[in-house]
């Protein structure tokens, strides 16, 4: 939910109790005032009647007396509430009555004055209408205020957000503009510091990778070249050859691991980012012949259903991904096995026969998942890394001796 929408919602939700409490308060307030006024009015009328009677011994011509009860006496004037049925509306209407007594020619008379009161529902309606009107005004005011505030006050925040969402790690750290608000300045400077640190670390990692691999490569080359020389000098010395073999094998494995690890970290660092729209179908068709010999030697049957598939991906990475997947399917196959490749615009599936696999297939995506043959097992880790970069979903399932890898190109 957007910040401004959230602000509106919160503000107006808070206004609901104000409306409720306000209505109740107004209701009692109005009621109190009506009683006060009615009682005052009745008392005034009573005083007028009593004064007129004491002067002239009769009631004035114009009066509001409702009833005169003979022989009843109240020492003090008494107010009473009563409900009287209104015949026309067939409704009970509240009235206020004032009982007071006068002495006329030695006899006691009680005079009743009556005044119509507004009903509770009328008062409530009035109170509610009042509050609604007020609320409408407040709402209008708040709406304008919130709009103004969020546009003006939150402007630096939206600016920062815009800069951040466009930021890429390979680019220089962007400059944030100064704001008059301390909090936003502190936010900007914190982000700035974080970005500088991230960029620095990224550069350091990249440099470390490059330096480490360059040093490793040069010295590995020295080891391999000199071992080769020794090998030729000691060709007939079986004992030395065993040791030399160990060195050669370790150096070769180290070269492979070093290459793969470097590749992994470069993919992770998004150093391959020349995305182009290319045909994965073509890459699959071109990659398959690389493994033709291995396929023939093992008499593997290849079935394929390749439809057109265009992806926006770095050409090198697409090739590495397809090669590694096919390599995996060929190398971990069995004699007289099969490979089934399906490629569509939405996904790539490679199914192959293999050995029965007991462990969790997910572990195969981990770096250095060692197989039976002692592979370094970085091939699938590289594929996983590529899928992660492009938000492709990858799954590896094993059902008995059937291995199935699926890649879903979901980012389209």
């Amino acid at each position, binding site marked *: 939910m957007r910040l401004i929408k959230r602000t509106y919602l919160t503000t107006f939700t808070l206004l609901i109790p104000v409306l409720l409490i306000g209505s109740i308060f107004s209701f009692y307030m109005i009621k109190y005032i009506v009683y006060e006024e009615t009682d005052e009015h009745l008392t005034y009328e009573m005083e007028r009647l009593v004064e007129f009677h004491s002067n002239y011994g009769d009631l004035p011509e114009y009066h509001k007396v409702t009833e005169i009860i003979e022989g009843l006496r109240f020492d003090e004037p008494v107010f009473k509430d009563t409900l009287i049925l209104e015949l026309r509306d067939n409704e009970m209407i509240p009235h206020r009555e004032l009982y007071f007594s006068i002495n006329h020619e030695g006899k006691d008379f009680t005079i009743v004055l009556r005044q119509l009161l507004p009903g509770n529902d009328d008062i409530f309606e009035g109170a509610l209408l009042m509050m609604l009107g007020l609320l409408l005004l407040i709402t209008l005011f708040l709406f304008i205020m919130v709009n103004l505030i969020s546009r003006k006050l939150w402007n630096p925040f939206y600016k920062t957000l815009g800069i951040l969402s466009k930021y890429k790690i390979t680019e220089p750290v962007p400059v944030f503009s100064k704001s008059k608000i301390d909090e936003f300045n502190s936010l900007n400077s914190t982000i700035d510091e974080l970005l500088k640190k991230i960029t620095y670390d990224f550069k350091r990692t990249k440099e470390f*990778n*490059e330096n480490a*691999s*360059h040093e490793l*490569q*040069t*010295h*590995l*080359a*020295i*080891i*391999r*070249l*000199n071992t*080769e*020389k020794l*090998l*030729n000098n000691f*060709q007939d010395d*079986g004992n030395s*050859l*065993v040791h*030399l*073999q160990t060195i*050669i*094998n370790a*150096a*070769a*494995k180290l*070269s*492979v691991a*070093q*290459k793969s690890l*470097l590749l992994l970290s*470069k993919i992770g660092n998004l150093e391959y980012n020349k995305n182009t729209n290319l045909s994965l179908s073509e890459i699959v068709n071109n990659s398959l012949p*690389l*493994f033709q*010999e*291995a396929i023939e*030697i093992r008499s593997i049957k290849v079935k394929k259903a390749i439809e057109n598939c265009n992806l926006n991906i770095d050409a*090198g990475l697409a090739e590495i991904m397809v*090669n590694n997947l096919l*390599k995996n399917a060929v*190398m971990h196959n069995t004699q007289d096995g099969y490979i089934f490749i399906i490629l569509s615009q939405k996904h790539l599936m490679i199914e192959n026969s293999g050995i029965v696999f007991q462990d969790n297939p997910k572990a195969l995506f981990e770096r250095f998942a060692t197989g039976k*043959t*002692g*592979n*370094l097992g970085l*091939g699938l880790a590289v594929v996983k890394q590529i899928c992660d970069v492009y938000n492709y979903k990858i799954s590896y399932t094993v059902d008995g001796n059937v291995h199935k890898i699926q890649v879903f190109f979901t980012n389209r």
Partner: protein
Amino acid sequence: MKVLIVEDNLTLLDSISSSLIGEKFLCETSADFDTAHEKIFLYEYDIVIVDINLPGGSGLEIIRELKKNNSKTGVIVVSARDSLDNKVEGLELGADDYITKPFEMVELIARIKALMRRRNFAGNSNISYGDITIITDSREVFVKNEKIELTKSEYNILLFFFSNPQRVITKESIAEHIWGDNMDLADSFDFIYSHIKNLRKKITAHHTPDPIKAVYGIGYKLDIPLK
């Protein structure tokens, strides 16, 4: 055959040059940009092996100079794996081949000899050892003047052996030479074994002694007894 090796690591430089001297090449060495630059100005080389990362400048600049002055010189770029762009740029500048560290000497020698054949320095593209002749132009192999049919990998393996006669070639070297990065080492050994088995069968079918000797599980060696 005059070769100039440009490499900043002195130990590696020494290893390469002593191996090439063993192959009867005339070797000169240079460990930095300036001396390399000077040497290509003063002398003519048949082949220059140049590392891209050099103190004082880029190996790419050396290639550029070479191609400007003398287009006959063959260039092999040696570099670290992390510069894929360098590879493309190097080849675009006119380098003939590209090899990444760490490489094996047999691989470098095979590349140099392939380059020599392509440039036709010696005036022939045929290589013969004993009864076997490889005609590299047409990729044909003759045993006792009879043509034998080899698969692509079998041919490549045989040519690799012929580029390095009498040298022990490890299984790792063969695997890297034939498949590059497209196969994991351990997996490829089985395939190498079956390729060599087929190769031997096709050659010995012509009553020729087996030219490929196994070396204690490490690898193989082309060893044809000279008559």
